[in-house]
């Protein structure tokens, strides 16, 4: 005859058993390790800063001071690279036949008598080289730059009144402190880590149903609620642990670590709910994988959308993972505090409750109708 057993002891026994089974599923163990290593390496290989300047090759004689003054005045983001001859400049632009190590995209060649001709009010020609890929706005900017140099040399003022300009930067002015790609991709990696564990959970659940081991469990003093609690805890715990491990590897806890932990925990709950649904619905490995992907691809879209400039489309903003991604990006990249991310976390919490409850209800029905 069995002794009285607590609900917690039963739940913990199931979790321990599942962890042992999981550790013997070579496929998921290998996938987990490989994915963490690959994501970690890929993250650190990505650029850690944003190069906000661009190089302009220049050939000129006797105008060093003028150029220095012009750069001080308006040359933010422009780095002038001097060349002794037009041939050397053209070689650096990739026009000499050989491929330069770091080809320039823009070049300016001033004629040797430029200074004298401009001062005398005579016509002269400055050659502006632009790579085919240079945006048309930048070509115009280069032409204006040459024109301003000419006016400066001639001692004449610009033929128009230079208006006062007031630049209003919306949000924090990040000139000189742009968010690098590495920071933007962090939420995507966190989601990928969560997703791997979701597939492991859904596979464990599906196997338990297909092999009818759950029936054996449920004719012991175990209740359906114990079984559901164990699977929910296991899925959330595994997904959370793996995502945190990856975030540690990619050094994510420098800014607002508690906000990041809260976001990852909510993400783990969200994907666990999806994993429970996929595990209950799938009749074999392929079907489980299919249902898992059907949930995971939409969840990844907000994390991918962060990689592109501009605001996300309205339909992206209603996806369940949008709030989580925003919370991760705002806290880790922009050092946003609790007050700023609270709306995002609140939205994510709502979706988590819905997904987790749906997962539990669907799995409960599946188990009870075996």
């Amino acid at each position, binding site marked *: 005859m069995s002794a009285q057993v607590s609900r917690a002891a039963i739940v913990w*026994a199931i979790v321990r058993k599942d962890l042992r089974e999981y550790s013997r599923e070579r496929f998921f163990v290998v996938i987990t390790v490989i994915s963490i290593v690959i994501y970690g390496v890929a993250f650190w290989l990505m650029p850690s800063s944003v190069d906000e300047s661009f190089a302009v090759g220049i050939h000129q004689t006797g105008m060093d001071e003028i150029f220095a003054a012009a750069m001080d005045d308006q040359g933010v983001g422009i780095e002038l690279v001097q060349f002794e001859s037009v041939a050397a400049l053209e070689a650096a632009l990739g026009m000499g036949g050989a491929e330069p190590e770091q080809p320039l995209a823009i070049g300016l060649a001033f004629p040797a008598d430029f200074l004298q001709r401009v001062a005398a009010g005579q016509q002269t020609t400055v050659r502006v080289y632009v790579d085919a890929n240079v945006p048309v706005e930048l070509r115009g900017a280069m032409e204006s730059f040459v024109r301003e140099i000419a006016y400066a040399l001639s001692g004449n003022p610009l033929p128009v009144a230079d208006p006062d300009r007031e630049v209003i930067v919306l949000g924090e002015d990040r000139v000189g402190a742009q968010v690098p790609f590495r920071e933007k991709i962090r939420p995507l990696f966190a989601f990928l880590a969560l997703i791997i564990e979701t597939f492991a959970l859904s596979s464990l659940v599906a196997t338990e149903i297909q092999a009818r081991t759950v029936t054996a469990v449920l004719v012991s*003093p175990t209740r359906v609620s114990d079984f559901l609690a164990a699977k929910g805890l296991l899925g959330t715990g595994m997904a959370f642990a793996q995502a945190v491990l990856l975030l540690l590897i990619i050094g994510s806890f420098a800014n607002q670590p508690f906000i990041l932990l809260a976001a990852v925990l909510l993400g783990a709950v969200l994907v666990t709910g999806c994993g429970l649904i996929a595990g209950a619905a799938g009749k074999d490995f392929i079907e489980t994988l299919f249902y898992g992907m059907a949930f995971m691809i939409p969840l990844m879209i907000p994390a991918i959308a962060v990689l592109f400039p501009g605001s996300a489309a309205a339909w992206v903003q209603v996806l369940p993972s949008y709030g989580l991604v925003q919370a991760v990006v705002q806290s880790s990249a922009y050092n946003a505090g609790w007050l700023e991310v609270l709306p995002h976390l609140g939205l994510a919490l709502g979706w988590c409750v819905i997904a987790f409850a749906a997962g539990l209800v669907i799995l409960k029905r599946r188990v009870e109708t075996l």
Partner: protein
Amino acid sequence: MSEEAIRVEGVSYAYGDVKAVDDISFSVAQGEVLGFLGPNGAGKSTTIKLLTGQMRPQTGDIAILGMNVAKDRDAIQGRIGVCFEEKNLYLNLSAKENLRFFARLFGIRDFDPTPLLQRVGLADRADDRVKGYSKGMQQRLMVARCLLNNPDILFLDEPTDGLDPVSSQAIRRVIEEEAARGAAILLTTHDMDEADKLSDRVAFINDGTIAALDTPENLKLAHGQRSVRVRTRANGEIRERVVPLDASDTGDQLKAVVGAEGLLTIHTEEATLEAVFITLTGRGLQE
């Protein structure tokens, strides 16, 4: 045999319009083995699901160890053991790990699986993963699993189906030992010979109803036909003849046979449970 371990009264269950169990009533006493015999789809597995609390009866009452199965599910499930027809073991775990896991679910502390594994002849493979076991070994482990809480009632669903003679024999021995210990056993099986040898009583279930319920001997006496099979040799030719023992001229027929020259063999034959089942239901067990 003493107290009732299982009491079923007027229980019915239907899947939609299909009645799987239709107003069945029976009881099983402690220490009794009740054979539950019937073809596939007769309602045996549904009955076990109802008795083990996996499903609730739509009508009728089930009392297990004096408790209501719908209300006292937790208490009941701590005192029963169920051996399923399908091999629902954790294949990536060893036999020891399987048993230890289920022991934890029953709240058994410091459980030592070795004696149980010795009892079913698996002690030497105790640490091997179950996915490497033969069908017979897995079934023996299933039986071991349903014994780990020393249950008062055992539900055994086709425990020897398709097994090798060694595994079947091991499981039959366990059933006899458990009945001797005082456990009530509900045994569903296709194997009439097994049911005949192991069961104190048998219930014939057909189309969700119990067609007959009695001891094997009484059923055979009541519904079977006893006979004598006689082989004789005459003019170099061997002949065989069956003489019914319950006919009005049985005595005359036997005198004639025994007195004849060339008598080779004479055997009494009893009715089988299979024959009785066919007589009562009009269908065989293997259908």
